[in-house]
């Protein structure tokens, strides 16, 4: 029982990331009808916003520390970050410690800008082109973005710590009445899950309860009719692209402490997120979220040691196997609607 709950929890954080990326992918599919292979790159750029902010706050200079001396009796030089020097001990260290949550604030405008530039500068020329061309051009863009990041940050993963307050694990087991220390779950993963749930809730609320969201949903269902009603649907769709970029970016920012970002982190997630979208049903937002969590949890269950002993390598392929089974039995995915991305 304990191990089942533990695996369930372990699946949640990966599932959250899949769900967030798949949500953005589906938004872009549904509104613009574009297959965005560069969506993983947006996730990666989000993660690198966190890395950059952490680095920027860490920029330091050497000062003499009169209270300490080295073994020769000279005054020791100590690295002092500029933020500590400017804002004092308390605020400075707080900024450094909380760089990842702060990156969330910065990431929203940056990712929105990147999304708008991407859509206006490249994607909009591809609405009328075949899907193969869309796949190829965004694939090329993903390579370019990856290589730019690699040129600046190198090829190695860069560890980006979570705030001190979230280091350590939360004893979930005790809360549920099990023995202490039976089910330990890192705080930051818990934070990630709630963060993802919040973002998903906000996106759904935005689409469901605002006039803007209503128009967008109408546009997803029947673009032509909405256009005939005199609504400039294209302009709203640009904003949806920006929104999808922000969602992917935030997913990346918050994921940085869980998995040290490197330049191909986005592609690793993208392939799986595509599978998630396919399983959930192309064009279905609830499907994307449900399938994201489902596959994340399945993957974590498949990583249990006795299952690996039973079927070696199942943890590597379970997602793909599920995708194959779903596509063979329910070709439209779990919640796919008729007529969406059929050809």
């Amino acid at each position: 029982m304990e191990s089942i709950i533990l695996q369930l929890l372990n699946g949640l954080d990966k599932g959250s990331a899949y769900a967030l990326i798949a949500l953005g992918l589906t938004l872009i599919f549904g509104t613009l009808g574009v297959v965005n292979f560069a969506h993983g790159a947006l996730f990666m750029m989000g993660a690198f916003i966190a890395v950059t902010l952490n680095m920027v706050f860490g920029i330091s200079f050497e000062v003499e520390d009169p209270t300490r001396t080295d073994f020769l009796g000279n005054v020791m030089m100590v690295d002092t970050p500029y933020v500590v020097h400017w804002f004092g001990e308390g605020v400075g260290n707080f900024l450094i410690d909380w760089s990842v949550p702060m990156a969330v604030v910065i990431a929203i405008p940056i990712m929105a800008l990147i999304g708008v530039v991407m859509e206006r500068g490249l994607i909009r020329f591809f609405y009328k082109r075949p899907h193969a061309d869309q796949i190829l051009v965004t694939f090329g863009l993903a390579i370019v973005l990856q290589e730019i990041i690699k040129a600046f940050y190198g090829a190695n993963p860069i560890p980006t710590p979570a705030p001190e307050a979230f280091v350590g694990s939360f004893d979930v087991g005790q809360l549920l009445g099990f023995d202490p220390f039976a089910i330990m779950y890192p705080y930051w993963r818990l934070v990630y899950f709630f963060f993802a749930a919040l973002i998903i809730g906000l996106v759904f609320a935005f689409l469901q309860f605002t006039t803007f969201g209503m128009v967008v949903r109408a546009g997803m269902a029947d673009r032509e009719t909405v256009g005939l009603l005199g609504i400039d649907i294209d302009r709203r769709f640009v904003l949806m692209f920006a929104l999808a970029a922000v969602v992917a970016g935030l997913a990346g920012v918050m994921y940085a402490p869980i998995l040290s970002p490197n330049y191909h982190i986005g592609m690793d997630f993208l392939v799986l997120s595509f599978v998630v979208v396919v399983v959930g049903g192309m064009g279905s937002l609830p499907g994307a979220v449900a399938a994201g969590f489902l596959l994340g949890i399945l993957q974590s269950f498949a990583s249990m040691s006795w299952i690996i002993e039973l079927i070696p390598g199942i943890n590597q392929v379970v997602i793909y196997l599920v995708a194959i089974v779903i596509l063979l039995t329910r070709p439209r995915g779990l919640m796919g609607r008729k007529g969406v991305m059929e050809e």
Partner: protein
Amino acid sequence: MLGLTAKDARLYLIVLVMLIFAPFFLNPFPEGSGLAQFNAGYPDMMQRLVIFGLFAVGFNILFGLTGYLSFGHAAFLGAGSYAGVWMFKLLTMNVIPALIVSTIVAGLFSLLIGFISLRRSGIYFSILTLAFAQMCYSLAYSVLTPITGGETGLQLALDDPRVLGVTQTAEGNIPVPHLFGLPMNASTSLDIGAWSFTFSVGYYFAAVVFALAFYFTIRLFRSPFGLVLRAVKSNQGRLSYTGLNARPYTLAAFVISGMFAGLAGGLMVSMDPLAGAERMLWTASGEVVLMTILGGVGTLIGPILGAGAITYLEAIISTINSTVLHRWFDIFPEWLENLLVNIVYPFVGSGWHLTLGLVFMIVVIFLPGGIVEGGRKIYGLFSRKREEPGSMPPNAAAQPGPGE
């Protein structure tokens, strides 16, 4: 000739002449001159050109004719390489059985993957093939290590059985792949003045295989079967109204192109008996897509040109370093020299993938028909001047273009 129309026979002859005399015209710069690094006439490079040409020609049978964009073709190349190395390990170092088995294994493999993936079309198909290729990659990297050699790759060893061959040579070395006793790495060179031309067994063997495969491809393009595949691309719905089920045809195209990839993989290990999982990575699949697009999708000559251009550029660009750049821009004043070097540097050497990505985007955005279409446009520009401006040649639409 050989059942080809005059036009196709001309194209085939040109390709044959190119293959035979490649060691000469890929080596236009004399040895030791500053431009010698642009030479591509050494065996390793020429083999790569031919092998990737074969891979791209096979990929084009699927993507060019049926329009199904597979993002997992590297998996078949990888499967073919592994099968080839296993034949070297178990049976004999002769390359013929290795090539046959590589092709068959890749064919069976693509039959399985194609059978499932082809149930969906469009984006679904691309994603499914991508997922399958990633699955093969991660399996080859982890669980299948006894078969694939995992991270180190599958290599020959001194204690391999080699039932029909020798386990070790007389000197105690691992034997090299050969064609009935003719070693693949044997070569002879011809020196004319400052030029040195190398003719290797491996290259000419690969060229013969390529020539046979290309002949097969031309016949396939011109056959009724090829016509059905084109019909799948232009309108699958109408095809089914005529009473034809498209799926067996697309599956056949998928398997044929998978077998081409397996053959390319087999050739690859015949030249260098080492197979690694990274050959199955999605970037490798993306590269063959790019070759086909860059050359010209659906044309006969396009994939060859694209594969040649990409392979050549990769080899040249990835060897350029800052010393070479400084030598190039030597003639400029120093500040300009440094500026130019700093501008160009991120795109060369280890930055080759950045250049690749940019080329990819530029080709897809501005020249979706690739080199062949570009050539046709230039040709059209010059030939139209002689005719009435704005008037098309009477049967331009009906006639296949020069590269087709």
